[in-house]
């Protein structure tokens, strides 16, 4: 608990950390309460106000069916941000486990696992996610799984490299001398000491996950219309781009904001969790 408080204090001392933390907190609030707070029904058509510019009635304007863009973005925040977080969690947990295991066991097993992750990392993550989706079929949930799997190798690499530094430490040797089992050493001795860089990486990955999810929906492989998922909103708005920029601008800015927020938070966390910086 103490260490958590120390980290948070350190985080608020750097400007990027403070801004990142604030933005992420706001986004999280939006995610939890957004759909309920939305001023209008995000799916309701307003025929007399198609392509409306921002006004007091529609704060961020309306789209081609006259749907309120503010309400849509708010309602869509849940699917967009929560799904991105979920995808990151899947990728992080799987990657960390594989990385720690591979790094700790070492030898031929390590070689085998790392060559496989090398092979997977040779494929760009978006392409890899597309591949997985075309096998699983397109839906929001499959997109989350696809992104999670696509993130796993990178995460495994990071976890493994830190594990390699830790594995020769005295406390690991001591645990081995005591005759502790492999899983106990992995989770009780190594994991707490490799968690910091993994968390930093995960935070930055959230931003990538938001963008990849949006890209997949944009390509028609994620959310289904009329879902207010941000990437899908941009894809649909493209056809109407020359008549009104708002249907593209609003979700576009929202995606940019989320990416910036998590990147700033990641930067701040890196500084806060870095032992050299805190000493």
């Amino acid at each position, binding site marked *: 608990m103490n260490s958590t408080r120390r980290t948070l204090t350190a985080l608020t001392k750097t400007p990027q950390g403070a801004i990142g933390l604030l933005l992420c907190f706001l986004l999280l609030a939006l995610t939890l309460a957004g759909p309920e707070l939305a001023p209008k029904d995000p799916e*309701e058509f307003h*025929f007399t106000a198609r392509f409306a510019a921002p006004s007091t009635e529609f704060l961020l304007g309306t789209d081609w*069916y006259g749907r309120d863009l503010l309400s849509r973005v708010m309602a869509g925040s849940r699917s967009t941000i929560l799904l991105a977080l979920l995808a990151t969690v899947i990728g992080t947990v799987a990657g960390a486990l594989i990385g720690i295991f591979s790094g700790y066991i070492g030898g031929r097993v390590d070689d085998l696992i790392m060559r496989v992750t090398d092979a997977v990392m040779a494929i760009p993550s978006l392409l890899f996610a597309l591949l997985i989706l075309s096998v699983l079929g397109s839906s929001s949930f499959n997109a989350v799984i696809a992104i999670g799997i696509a993130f796993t190798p990178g995460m495994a690499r990071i976890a493994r490299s830190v594990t390699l530094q830790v594995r020769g430490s005295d406390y690991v040797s001591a645990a081995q001398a005591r005759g502790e089992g492999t899983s106990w050493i992995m989770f009780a001795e190594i994991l707490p000491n490799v968690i910091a860089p993994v968390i930093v990486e995960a935070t930055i990955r959230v931003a990538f996950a938001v963008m990849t999810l949006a890209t997949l929906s944009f390509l*028609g492989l994620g959310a*289904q*219309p*009329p879902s207010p998922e941000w990437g899908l909103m941009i894809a649909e708005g493209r*056809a109407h781009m020359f008549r009104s920029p708002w249907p593209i601008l609003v979700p576009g800015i929202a995606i940019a904001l989320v990416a910036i927020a998590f990147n700033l938070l990641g930067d701040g966390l890196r500084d806060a969790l870095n032992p050299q910086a805190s000493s």
Partner: protein
Amino acid sequence: MSFPQFNRRQFLLSGAALGVSALGLPVTSAIAATPGGTLRVGLNITPNKLNPMLARVNSEYMLGEMLYSGLTTLATDMSAQPDLAIEWSSNEDATQWRFVLRENAQFSNGDPVTSNDVVASFTKLLDPETSAPGRRNLGPIKNVEADGDFAVIFDTETPFSDLPVGLTYPTAKILPASLIIESFEGFDQTPVGSGPFRLVDFKPDQVVVVEKNPDYFLPEQPLLDRVEIRTFPDASSAAAAMLAGEIDLLNEVQPTDFERVANGQGIDGLVTPSGRFLDIVMDNSKPPFNDKRVREALSLSIDREAMVELVAEGYGTPGNDSPVNGAYRYYKESSLKSFDPDRAKALLAEAGYPDGLELELVASVKPGYRSSMAVVVREMAKASGFDISVKTMDHPTYLDQVWKKGQFYVGYYNMQPTEGTIFNLLFTSDASWNETKWNNEAFDALVAEADRTTDTAKRAELYAQAQQMMSDEVPAIVPCFFDLLGAKASYVEGYTQHPRGASYGFHKVSLSKSAPTR
């Protein structure tokens, strides 16, 4: 929720008409037309097959029409007009037809076009081994034989009074008999036809160039020296090329781009009402759609005027659940179905769904307005208690898994030349694509009788009954028809958009004196 009445389309049309009359353009521009010049046409689906009998897409039909001639051609009012045949007649019960050919037509290799070539071409076209795409659309042809050098006799299996119209099908072109026997594959590389133009260069995905046929059988036509057909990767880049003046004519513009393109400097937008439609297909043989009250409830849940505005961007006409509209010859006008969610709700309750009905509507992503319609239907039908979720899928998956098999999906069909063709394609029990499985014997009998009736007034009556029956029974919901949208440079004259969308008439097109010289 209230849907105000929209009539931007009528406004635009009347505006266009005013513009024309204000400029005082001569109506008889064909006489004053200046010959010569090069017309540049834009496409976004490239022609791949040069053999006109094997053409499948509009761009290939376009080339087929320029390089070859058929017996008859389709006028914009969907009647058959002379092409190689100058007149035709049938016996009393429309089972035998005689077509008289013109005597001044010749192929590009110098041979005259005779009845021999016509017989050989139709024999090849009807041979299942040729697998020509339009084989079934020509009519129930049993036998074709020559009657002297310049007349042909067609026998049909059953009485068929639409044969001259059936023969306008874009793949029904006349090829030289000698070459059909010697090397049919040769037509993939070297066209030999009697059309208004001759091929100069053919690069799929890039450009196709044709030049004037000096021996064309119509006097003083074609007017143009040359036509260049350029392929663009997608609709928006073709629209951009039109705006930049890189092309003179574009015959497919997306509804969302149309206003921008039509407002471009020196560009005339072309709007042609057509029978092209999107429909909500329901499987009439399974619950819940085997209950007419459910289909009727959904039909009452749709505001058709608003649908035209939202899905076709105003460039369309509302439909009454029959696939026939004003662009067809025997359209029977009827008052538009009302938008009545309360009555729909009551009907749904009567049918046993007092708490509403959950459904999944499938829409392919091509063309883009399929999913727009699905989303709009979902929103409109909410008020009557339908809870429709939309599922989009890519086009190959849709064709493979849903089309003709699914319970509830959005269909998309081109206009057909006759009422009989569209009914027999989709809605009769033995239709080629009987996707609704409506299987109504009374309807089948009506369509079959209309097909063999030669008396125009009686046919009109029969087809009117068929349309009314569809509107009452709602085997599928046809909420709106789409106009064909195109654009041309103001200096292009004599071009009329054909509502069928597969006929172009480039031999009548010319460039005015104000056209830039290149």
